[in-house]
């Protein structure tokens, strides 16, 4: 019988995908959120982790941007 799982479909560019994969690896076993790694730019993850991923990404972006010491 076809098995259907509810979740969140993520599509992004390859560097961001790698970022999400190692974010997932750094989480403790119980909170691993990636259900399937569909291909190098698409994931299927738990439905409730959208906010957490977005905040991790924006934090990652802030680390990378240089703030001119005003």
């Amino acid at each position: 019988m076809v098995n259907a799982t509810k979740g969140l479909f993520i599509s992004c560019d390859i560097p961001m995908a790698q970022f999400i994969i190692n974010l997932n690896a750094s989480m403790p076993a119980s909170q691993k959120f990636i259900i399937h790694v569909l291909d190098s730019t698409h994931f299927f993850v738990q439905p409730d982790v959208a906010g957490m991923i977005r905040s991790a990404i924006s934090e990652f972006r802030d680390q990378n941007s240089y703030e001119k010491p005003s």
Partner: protein
Amino acid sequence: MPQVKIIAKNFMDMVASLPAIKLDMLYRNQFICEAILRSLPPLAKKYVLQMLYIDVPITSKSLQEWVIADGSSKHKVAIDRLIQLRVLEVIDRKKETAYKLNSTFQTNLRKHLINGGILPREPMPSNVTARLPTLEELDAYAHGQWECFLLQLISSGQAERSTSFSSSMMRIFQRGLLRQREKEVPRLTESGFQFLLMDTNAQLWYVIREYISNSEEQGVDQADLIAFLLELSFHTTGEAYSLNTLTDDQRAMIKDLADLGLVKLQQGRKESWFIPTKLATNLSVSLTDSSLRKQGFVVVETNFRLYAYSSSKLHCEILRLFSRVEYQLPNLIVGAITKESLYNAFENGITAEQIITFLQQNAHPRVAEKTPAVPENVTDQIRLWETDLNRVEMTPAHCYDEFPSRDVFEAASDFARVHCGLLWEDPKKMRMVVKAEIHMLMREHLRGNK
């Protein structure tokens, strides 16, 4: 100037949405026919002129022959527009449809073409209206009125004198534009920001459309208001027209129009009169998107600095939306486009495209000649920062796998594609991801032909 077209088009949609008898009453005025004719797409204009002196209905087949093959899409658009505005009446014979021009529209347009536009009222003799304001004064007056109305609209504290619109009226205008949470200061909604970035004519049409749809509730006949407005746009700027030629509905409207800056009211000893400003006469022009362009004021440099040669507070407010205004001189606003300023613009729902079109359309004439008006590296960087914000797209979905056989998988994926819910599929592992919305349909489909 796409947004003018959209707004003006909705104005035309509003006219089209009027009931038939109201529309016929509207077409009794020659100027309305001319304004409607001008708002039609070019092909529709030609059809109207061609059928002007044909009294017998024309079958749609012979109408089709006027156009060559690859013009048929434009032909269809033109015909639909004409029917929508009831300029063309559809006569359904037994076997096929035929079209005929709306008779009142036809007679009035004929009269208009034969002896030209005759205004219903004469400009007042100059001895009564002593000294009329010059055109420049009129422009300055119109601009000032409009700006202070706008400032009050977005209820920023900077408007010096408040317009005479009642606060309820203002709330009606602000309906789509402001989000008023209880104790918070009212903040602009997404469409509020887009409204601010629009061209003056587009904003004017938006406000008039709200004004007219609101006047419907107070029992004022919409058709009269529209007729009076379009007729106003055919008057000559700077001429004085006496008030007692107006009906009292129109007189009430004139006061509101004076607040918007469309007309200037003046009180003589015995008589009072109104003078249409450029804003009024541009109304019918901006119906078609070839409206005249006003003076640009923004200069953007390759080092992301922004110099706006304008003293208006409104411009300052708009620039503050997406740039950090560093200092304001009497006739110059200096700002810098930074990542932070752009990020909070993007959060407010403004897109990079809107910012760029605003900068291009208001480019200072000195900068406007050389293409690109806004340096390429600035526009590229703005677009880059926008894509940087949403590098990841997340859509709620369902994943299906362990399909019993290949053809069940194929059938399911075709079904999903037909309902355009298919996000991703992998034929080898027979696994696919479908949007959440069509999950129910998918389930019946799968249960159906298991």
